[in-house]
C-alpha cells in the first residue's frame, strides 16, 4: 500500500486548475471563458480541503458556485450589442 493517493490526486486537481485558467484566457467565446474560470474556482475549493482549510473551502464554494458567474453574466448581458442580439432573436 505505498501508492501516494493524495499526491496523485493533488497533481490531477492542480492540472485541472491550470487547464481551466488556460481555457479562460484562450477561448474566443466569452461565455465559455467565464465557465472555464468557474472550473478553476471549483477545483481550488477541493485543493483547500486537501490542505486542511475547510473554512476557506467553504467560502470559495459559496462564492464561486453562483455569485461570481452571475455577476459576470449580468455584465456580459448588459454590454453585448443589442442590435446583433435582436437580429439573432428574430
Amino acid at each position, binding site marked *: 500500500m505505498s501508492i501516494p*493517493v493524495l499526491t496523485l490526486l493533488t497533481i490531477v486537481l492542480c492540472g485541472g486548475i491550470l487547464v481551466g485558467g488556460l*481555457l479562460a484566457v484562450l477561448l474566443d467565446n466569452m461565455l*465559455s471563458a467565464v*465557465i*472555464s474560470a468557474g472550473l478553476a474556482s471549483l477545483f481550488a475549493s*477541493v485543493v483547500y*480541503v486537501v490542505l486542511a482549510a475547510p473554512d476557506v473551502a467553504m467560502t470559495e464554494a459559496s462564492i464561486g458556485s453562483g455569485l461570481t458567474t452571475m455577476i459576470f453574466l449580468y455584465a456580459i448581458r448588459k454590454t453585448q450589442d443589442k442590435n446583433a442580439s435582436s437580429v439573432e432573436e428574430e
Partner: protein
Amino acid sequence: MTISFTDITVIICAVLIFFSIVFGIIRLVIGPDTVDRVVAIDLLTVVTIALITLLAHQAGRYIYLDVALVYGLLSFLGVLAVARFLEKGI
C-alpha cells in the same frame, strides 16, 4: 497484511473519481459548444461532492462534510444562471 473491505471500496471509489475528472476535463477542452462545457461543469461538480466526502472519510474528520453540503445545495445555481442567460431570461 490484510486489506479490509472498506479499503477496497475507497480505492475503487478513488479510481472511478479519477477517471470521471479526466473525462470531464477532456469534454471541457474539446467541447465545441458552450452547452457542452456547461454540462461538463455540472458533471465535475457532482464528482467534486463525492471527492470531498471521500476526503472526509480519509482524514477522519466528519466536519469536512459541511463543504460538500454547500456544493450540494448551491451547485445547480451556476448551471441555472447560464441556462437562463441562454434563453435571454436575465
